[in-house]
Every structure is written in C-alpha cells, then in structure tokens.
C-alpha cells in the first residue's frame, strides 16, 4: 500500500473543512498511519491512485463530508489541439504509447511543486509498476519548442536533470541515480526518447532534460506519459488533467499520431453506469432511503440522475478503479456507512464436517500424547544442509525455491525427522527424557509433479534410549491406527546406526522406518544423549 504525506493547512487551503483526525479517513476506506504535528501520513489503497495526490485527496474527502459537490459541468478541455506528437514505428516492440497535454495557469508555488512531483512519482511507481508500464514527464512548456516526436534510438544526446552538458543516452543511463534505478527497463537500448524541434526533452522512462525543468515559477506545463499500455497512459493523463482543472488549470489537448492514426489526448470522457437501488440494497443487506441516493452518489464524487428506482451514475475520468456496477455499489456502501449496517444472520442450518485428514491427525496426536510425546510444529521450508548433510543421507530430489531472502531457505522438507532433531539440539538444557512428535506434510517430486504426503515422526532422547523402546512405541501407534499386521526388516535409512535401523512393512508396502540415530548425526545436531526415532507415512 502506498502512503502519502499532506500538510493539514494545505488540505484546508484546498477547501477541506472537516477535521481529518475524526474518523472520516477510515470511513472512506483509507487509514491514517500517523499525524506528526501539522502533517498527516495516510495509507491509500491501490484502487484509488487519485487520492495519492493532495488535490484528489482533498476533493474526495470534502465531497464525502458533503462540503463540496461534484462539478456539474464535467471536466472539460480548453481550445483546439495545438501540438502534434509524432510516434515512431521503432517503438512498437519497446514502449509504444504516449499521451500528452499542455496545461496553462498552473501555480507551483507554496509547496505545490513538491506535491506534484511526489504524486507523479508515486503514480509511476504504483500504477506505472515502477515506471515499466508508465512514466510521467513534466516540462516547462515555455522551454519546449514544438513539434514533438516520440522515437527510439541506439544513441542520442540529452542534458539530464541536474546535468550541465549534453551526454550520450548510454551515459545518462549509467551515470545518473535514476538510470541506476530504472535503467533495467530499457537495457542497452534502443532508448525511447521524447524530443522537441531542437533537443531531447525526456529519456523515457528514466530521466527528463535539465533544459525543460519545471520550477516554482513555471506556469505552463507540457505533460507526456509514455508506456507499454495505451489504456494505462491515457488513464494516468486523465487523472492528472482532472487534478489540474480542479485547481484552476486549463488543459489543452495534444494530437498523438501513430502512423496514419491520430488520437486526441486527454479524452476526459465520463462513463455512464445504471445501477438499481435493489442491487445496492441486496449487497448491503439494508434498505436505502430513495430520497438520499443522489446525495450519497454526490458524496462519492458521482454526478447522478434518477430513473425510477434506478440511478444513472456518471463516472468522472479520474476514477480509474470503477470497472463496473459493483465498484459503484461499493462506493454506495461507503456512503451509507459500514457502521450503520446491522448484522443479519444467514437463514438455513448446515452441518460442519471436518476435513478427513485433519480429524485423523488429531486422533493420532492424542495417542502420541498418551505415549508421552510432546508435539513440535516445524517450518516446512528448510535447506539441504539440515535435510541431507546433517542426516548423513544422500541428497534426494526435492521441491526447490527459486529465490529466498533468507539464506537458510532453499527447499521444502522431504522428511520430518531433521526438524525434530533440530528441536532436541536446542533443548539440551531441559530435563530428560525428551520425547517429541510431529504430524504434517512432507514434499517430494514424482517426475515433475510435486507430491504432498502426510507423515508422523517421533523422537526420544535419554541416556538409555534404544531400539526396543522405539519399536514398542511404533507398534503401539500402528495398533491405534488399526494396523496390527506389520513386520520389520533390516534397513539402511540415512541417519541411523547400521544394524539398528528397520523398515516398517505393512500390506506388502514400506510405510516407514525406525531405529537408533547415528552418533555423527547427533553431533551434527548438537544432541548430547542417545536418540531413537521413527517416521511413518499416513496416506
């Protein structure tokens, strides 16, 4: 989840009167992480990127509080497209799409610049998937010389942000912090770039040019958004256009030319969705007041009109998250207030049935307790050292993890005993005898298919632990499981003393093994007393 930090006075300046500390943020589905002096840090759920921006946040909250209503006249464009952006075919396999606009009457003073930059960076980070899917370039329009081209080249030159002289594209990628962070997206080229009549203004998605840098004094912006998804770049441009219009900016569209096809960006289209009162009521489990539907819709930012017991919702262009009616119903639930919904029991009775394996494992656990074994619950994730080397066992096939942040994690356990031996090793100061069991799955491979198999394992550690003891326990466990007819035959499982290890055979199949653990294994696990052990397959 992304967070945003806003100054409370700045929120007030944008028209938000409600006290932000009084639950309103939670009621709309976001969360205040902390309030530090005059600054509030809010967690914004990923469906509402518009609220990562101070303008969008203040807009949503003041409408929710009923202080403001959605603009009736819709978000509109000013003037005819003046600028053409020509898109090269060379970008097709790299980063094919761009959306652009000119914004006039922009005020970047008093912290507005910081908010704008922070927001666009967050948007490129979240919706833009760390700039891979979309990246945003903000330029001082006064320093841009149209026409604009969007192209890709193996080489070219740019004066990168904070740079003094022209650099090759490769240098700008390798020599800047932004290049180090995002260079992986373009690799060794060809590099996508945006240029005006004279110079490169942006090495997308990495860095802009110093020559068109925006400052507090900037009043006219050229905004370009490049990316791999046409919808993503257009949506993001809509989002930005609305926020500028909300604070008095005038948005002039651009014509983006893809070969023979030309598109106008931004579009700022409203979508219309008709929702029945009944569908809202069904989802809520509450009756809504017909006279309040329009107010509720307004509070969530929709202009709405009634058609009998249906409502037409006009979805503003900045609401990227509204895919269909369900998302409107969700908003209407928020407007209704979750705290006002009275819980209603579900009619009809049903019988709860246990999972067969879990029930069986629980019965077996009671038998193990009766025999004096305490239960251990170990991690499923482990490594070859513990599973094979420490056990003096040949490394078998196992399910491997591709990449783990913790070094000790490389694979899923193939047997239960190593975990139990680790437990004994870390308990050497506790009184003997120490008896542990574990019931749980182990993971193996049959060809390329993973097999999850349930097992029980037991270990006993004390000065006189011996083969006869574990054999007697295993017999008791098997009897309790209804297996009376089993035999032992000499075996050589890894980790056991030769000649003191037996395979358990029942119904002609090997179902487990038992014996005395080899002293080298005891050394490996730092166990100080003799240990007997057994492991039995449950399936």
């Amino acid at each position, binding site marked *: 989840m992304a967070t945003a930090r806003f100054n409370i006075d700045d929120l007030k300046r944008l028209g938000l009167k409600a006290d932000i500390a009084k639950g309103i943020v939670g009621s709309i*589905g976001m969360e205040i992480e902390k309030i530090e002096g005059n600054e509030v840090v809010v967690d914004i759920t990923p469906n509402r990127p518009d609220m990562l921006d101070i303008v969008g946040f203040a807009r949503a909250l003041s409408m929710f509080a009923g202080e403001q209503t959605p603009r009736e006249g819709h978000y509109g464009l000013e003037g005819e497209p003046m600028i053409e952006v020509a898109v090269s075919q060379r970008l097709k396999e790299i980063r094919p799409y761009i959306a652009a606009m000119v914004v006039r009457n922009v005020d970047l003073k008093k912290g507005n610049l910081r908010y704008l930059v922070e927001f666009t960076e967050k948007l490129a980070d979240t919706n833009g998937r760390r700039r891979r899917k979309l990246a945003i370039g903000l330029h001082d329009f006064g320093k841009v010389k149209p026409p604009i081209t969007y192209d890709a080249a193996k080489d070219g030159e740019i004066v990168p942000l904070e740079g003094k002289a022209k650099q090759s594209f490769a240098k700008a990628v390798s020599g800047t912090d932004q290049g180090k962070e995002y260079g992986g997206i373009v690799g060794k080229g060809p590099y996508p770039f945006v240029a005006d009549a004279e110079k490169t203004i942006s090495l997308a998605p990495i860095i802009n040019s110093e020559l068109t840098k925006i400052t507090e004094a900037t009043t006219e912006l050229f905004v370009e958004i490049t990316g791999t998804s046409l919808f993503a770049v257009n949506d993001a441009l809509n989002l930005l256009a609305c926020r500028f219009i909300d604070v008095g900016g005038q948005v002039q569209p651009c014509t983006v030319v893809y070969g023979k096809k030309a598109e106008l960006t931004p579009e700022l289209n409203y979508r219309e969705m008709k929702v029945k009162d009944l569908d809202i009521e069904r989802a809520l489990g509450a009756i809504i007041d017909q006279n309040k539907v329009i107010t509720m819709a307004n509070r969530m930012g929709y202009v709405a009109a009634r058609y009998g017991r249906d409502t037409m919702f006009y979805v503003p262009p900045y609401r990227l998250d509204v895919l269909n009616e369900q998302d409107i119903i*969700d908003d209407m639930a928020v407007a209704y207030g*979750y705290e006002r919904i009275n819980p209603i029991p579900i009619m009809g009775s049903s019988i*709860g049935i246990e999972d067969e394996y879990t029930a069986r494992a629980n019965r077996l656990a009671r038998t193990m307790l009766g025999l004096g074994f305490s239960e251990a619950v170990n*991690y499923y994730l482990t490594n070859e050292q513990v599973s094979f080397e420490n056990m003096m066992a040949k490394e078998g096939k196992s399910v491997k993890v*591709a990449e783990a942040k913790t070094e*000790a*994690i490389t694979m899923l356990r193939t047997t239960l005993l190593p975990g139990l031996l680790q437990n004994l090793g870390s308990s050497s100061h506790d009184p003997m005898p120490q008896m542990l069991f574990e019931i749980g799955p182990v993971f193996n491979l049959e060809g390329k298919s993973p097999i999850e198999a349930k097992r029980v394992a037991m270990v006993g550690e004390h000065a006189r632990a011996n083969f006869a003891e574990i054999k007697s326990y295993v017999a008791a466990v098997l009897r309790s499981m209804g297996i009376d007819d089993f035999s032992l035959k000499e075996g050589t499982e890894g980790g056991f003393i030769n000649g003191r290890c037996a395979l358990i055979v029942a119904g002609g199949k090997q179902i487990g093994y038992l014996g005395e653990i080899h002293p080298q294994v005891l050394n490996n696990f730092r166990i100080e007393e003799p240990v007997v052990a057994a492991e039995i397959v449950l399936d």
Partner: protein
Amino acid sequence: MVLGLLKEGKGSSIGEIGKALKLNEDSVMWALEGLAKEGLVSVERREGQAAKLTEEAKGYLGGFPEEDLVREASATGELKIKDIRNQIALSWAKRNGWIDIREGMIKLSKAGEAIAHKGAYAQRTVLKELASSPEVDLSRLGKERKEALDSLKTRGLIELKSSNVITSIAITEKGRRVDTEAREDGIGQLTRDAIMGGKWREMSFRPYDVSASTAESHPARLHPMHEFIDVIRNAWLGMGFTEVSGPIIESAFWNFDALFSPQDHPTRDMQDTFFLSNPKEIDIGDIAILNRVKKMHEEGWRERWQESVAKQALLRTHTTSVSARYMARLSGVLEGSYPVKMFSVGKVFRNESIDYKHLAEFNHTDGIIAGDNLSLANLMDTLRKFYQQLGIDDVKFKPSYFPFVEPGLEAYYYDEKLKDTIELCGAGIIRKEITRAMGTDKTVLAWGMGIERLILHFLDIESLTELYKNNVGWLRARRELKIQ
C-alpha cells in the same frame, strides 16, 4: 528404615541413604525432615540462596535475544535500527558494549564480534549453571559472575530465594534410643504386600512433611499452534462450515489469476512470493475455467493474459486459493444445498527475511459462503459470531480494498491491553467477474486472515520465532491456551 540405617552408622548424605534404601531423594527428604522434627536426627543446613529460573529464562538457555541480534548483525553485515523490534535485545547488546549505533545502523564492536562467533556470554554461563544446580554461594562468585547474576535478577529472569541445604546428617541420642523395629510399623510407602496381606490394618501411617519439596513433572503437550488452530476449526465447524484443504504447492493461476490479481501486480514479484525452481510449472487442468479467467483478465485489466505466467509454480501466499478451487466446484452443487459454507486453515508463505517480527511461513484461515441474496450484513454477522468464540466481542467494520471483492471490508477491534486498534481480517463479496469465471451465478461472501497475530494475543509471548523454536522445556511448561 532411614533411622535404622543411621543407627548402623551408614548414610551421611541424602544420595547415599536413597541408594541404600532404594528411595528417591524426595522420599529421603521427607523422612529426614520428619525425623528432625521429632528430634531423632540432627541435620545441619547451610543457609544459602537458590535461584529459580522463570519460563522466559529457560527459553534463553539456548541463546539470549541479544546474542541472536549480534549474530544476525554479523551475518547480514548491516542491520538498521528501525528493523529491530526486540528492544530488550537492543538495550542489552548496547549495555554489554557489543554494538555501536551510528546513523541508524548497528555496528558490531570487537566484543560483539566475539559473541557473534560463539564467544561465551557471562549471563548465559551463569544461567546454565543455575539451571543444573540452583544453589548460589555469593561469597564464592567472581566479579564478572556476580554482575551477570545481578543482571539476571534485574531482568526478572531469576528469582533468588533463601534456601537451606542439608550438609550433614547425624542421629541424635534420642534417635539412638528409639526402637527402630517398632517404628517400622509406621507405614511409609504403601506396598502391595501391605495392601493385599491386610498388614496395613495393624499399622499406622507415618505422617509426611507435606511442605517438603518434590521433583518437577513434565507433561506431554500439544503445540500451542495446533491447539489454537483447533479452537478456530471448532468455531467454524460449530457454525456449520465444512472444512476443506488444498495444495500448498500451487499454480499462480489458483493463487492469483483466479482471484483477478493482474499478472503484472507487484505481489507477484519474487520479492514477495516464493516461486519454485523445481517444479517450475504446474498444469492448470480445467481448460474451460482457464479460458474464462483469461477473458476476465483481458476484459477487466485490458492487458494481454499469458498462460505461461499463470502456470508458474509457487508456495501459496494465502488460503484464498483453497476458496477459489472450491468456488470452481460450486457448479456441481445441488440447488437445494445452498447456502454452502466452507472454511480452510493452513500454511501460507511469503518471501520475507526472517527476524523477530517476520516469518516466511505462517497460518491463514479463509472461508466462503455461497448462495442467493447474501449481503454485507450477513458477512458481518458471520464474522462477529466467529470472533465472539475467540473472546473478541466488539468487532467493528470499515471499508477496505482487495482486488477480488467488491464491496470489501476490514474487521478490527480495539485491544484494551495493547491500547491499539488491531486488524482482524479482510472480507467482502467476491466480484461477479470471478464467480462467473468459476462457473457459478451465486453470490459469494469471502474472508481471509492470518492466525499468528491472534495467537500472540492469547499466548502472551513476545516474538513469533519463539513459537516455532520448539524448545522442549517451553513446550512442556507453557500455560494452557485460555480463550476469554
């Protein structure tokens, strides 16, 4: 018998008497204390102090948290101070001069490096000694040990109680005069002969010193996580939910795609999810569902959907995958059987660096109710009743967002003890796109939650890693899990 032995001039220590008479130490102690009370033997005691280890202390015998901390710092090379949750470990590592803190980073001192590489830690050495012999002779302790002992005391890891130990045993004059033959008539340990032969009728029971100390017993116990999972299972079963389980090794399809998580979503990074290198792929099987899920993604997210991405093998990140698989089976349910209620409990995995706060594997419980006319009000009622059974009465709800539900909510409560709002679970009504792709036209209520966070609340332990150390002493001595 004890008196008889002493009369013969044998038995100068408890151990010796025990051996000669085949009695355990407790019985000998009882006998001696009884005899001493009657003035038949004189025992000399040394007034000393005996240390009693707390449960916490026993958990530290294998290693103190500050030792773990420096080991982690040494292993990782750089540890940020804000990542350290265990403040006890931090403050003791500092006090011991093992670490310096510079610009929010932890730097190991020489002493710290020594500890990280298996150097001896005085507090642990002393604690170990006390564990095997609780007697403390203050006069004989060196400076370092004395300091370590004081530290253990201030940390509340040990309790020092004055004790007296029997150092010599001698029979008194009065004792010598006693006719031991006659005294033997008093019953000490009741025997089979005495019971069956009726001999007990002629004998009296020699009274014991009921306050004499005894050896500790160690019950076999279930792991607390197992007990807690059973509490949760019983809560769902009692509400008429059927328990279902599903694979731990899962395809991205059932873990993510079936739940409408976009294929380029950040949670699908290696950073957060354990993908497998062997096997690399898992077959999805049901082609009809696969095609419907593909359509759902391409229409909803307007992005190309790739089967190869969906086939990736991973360790499930939530048990919602079990719910998804169950939804896909709903098309076979008879109309009269609705509402259908199902839950699952099981292990889930996140690719985290393990520390005091983070585990790479933990447990989740998920559930769904499928039927007609199901609402948020029904969902709230269900969750409330579930949490009531865990002793959490005042559950509240607020809106929240999860990609597979709409509307979505989060359940939370205010914890009086922690003075904090605790999130309990995420829930909502499954998106129609998903239910349609799974082949059902029913409304599906769904929720999912982590269990570890809750068990901390009931077990009163500080860190999750403690829960999975499986230290035998801790497993046997821990308190019962008490709900409410």
